[in-house]
């Protein structure tokens, strides 16, 4: 079973999708489908690991270097950044 999704994207991204579709000899829809599947699958796999690691990091039981080793540099930076924002929110509210 499948369901139709529609979405808007800016001209520049559409051009990139079309360029990739041309090079890969695939349709625009197939390129978008592959991109969405790849993104969603990777995100869902990562979330489980990230949940545990983020909690350990917030508890101070993991260093940022250890966090980087577990979930990679970019995701670790996101976790660290979110922890900073969340901590400011708890400590300072909107002041």
């Amino acid at each position, binding site marked *: 079973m499948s369901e139709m999704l529609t979405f808007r994207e*800016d001209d*520049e991204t559409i051009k990139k999708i079309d360029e990739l579709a041309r090079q890969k000899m695939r349709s625009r829809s197939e390129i978008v489908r592959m991109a969405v599947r790849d993104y969603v699958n990777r995100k869902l796999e990562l*979330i489980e690991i*990230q*949940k*545990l*690691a*983020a*909690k350990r*990091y*917030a*508890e101070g039981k993991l260093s940022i270097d250890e966090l980087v080793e577990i979930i990679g540099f970019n995701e670790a*930076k*996101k*976790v660290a*950044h*979110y*922890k900073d*924002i*969340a*901590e*400011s*929110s*708890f*400590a*300072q*509210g*909107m002041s």
Partner: protein
Amino acid sequence: MKAVADASALLSLEYMGVLDDLLNIADIYTTESVNEELKEITCFRDERSGIAKRILLHVSDGKVKCIDSKGDMHSKNISLNHCFALCLSAKIHFLLTEDADAAYYLGRMAAQKGVKLRTSTAVLVELIKSGNINTQSARRKLDELMKKRSWEGGIIEVLARRYLE
């Protein structure tokens, strides 16, 4: 007190049942792109649909002020980018979001421009300060929110233990 809120923040606040209370103590702004995002969410077949509908009522009656704001359309996170642009044009110093990914990409630029990123927890803190809710009630609301969150829930849980007990 003024803040711009994106869809993730508005949904979290309404989910915790504190958006009404917030609107009594602060001026909350959002953008047309957030409004569109919320309209899209009303079509989902889950509880977010009803929550988005209630937020849209606040937008349509003007309690949440919706202003058309265009940011960088090439940004990875168009919606939060528009909210950031609104912060700059309206000189609003707080941007409420629960979107950790988008906040990460916006972080450095926001800091350079003096815009403070805050999660909806900041609202609970303000509601405690103003006497609208007590710490126990805030904690219960956060517990509910945590269950709905991805990895961010773990961080909120640890900080809630540190700050709300």
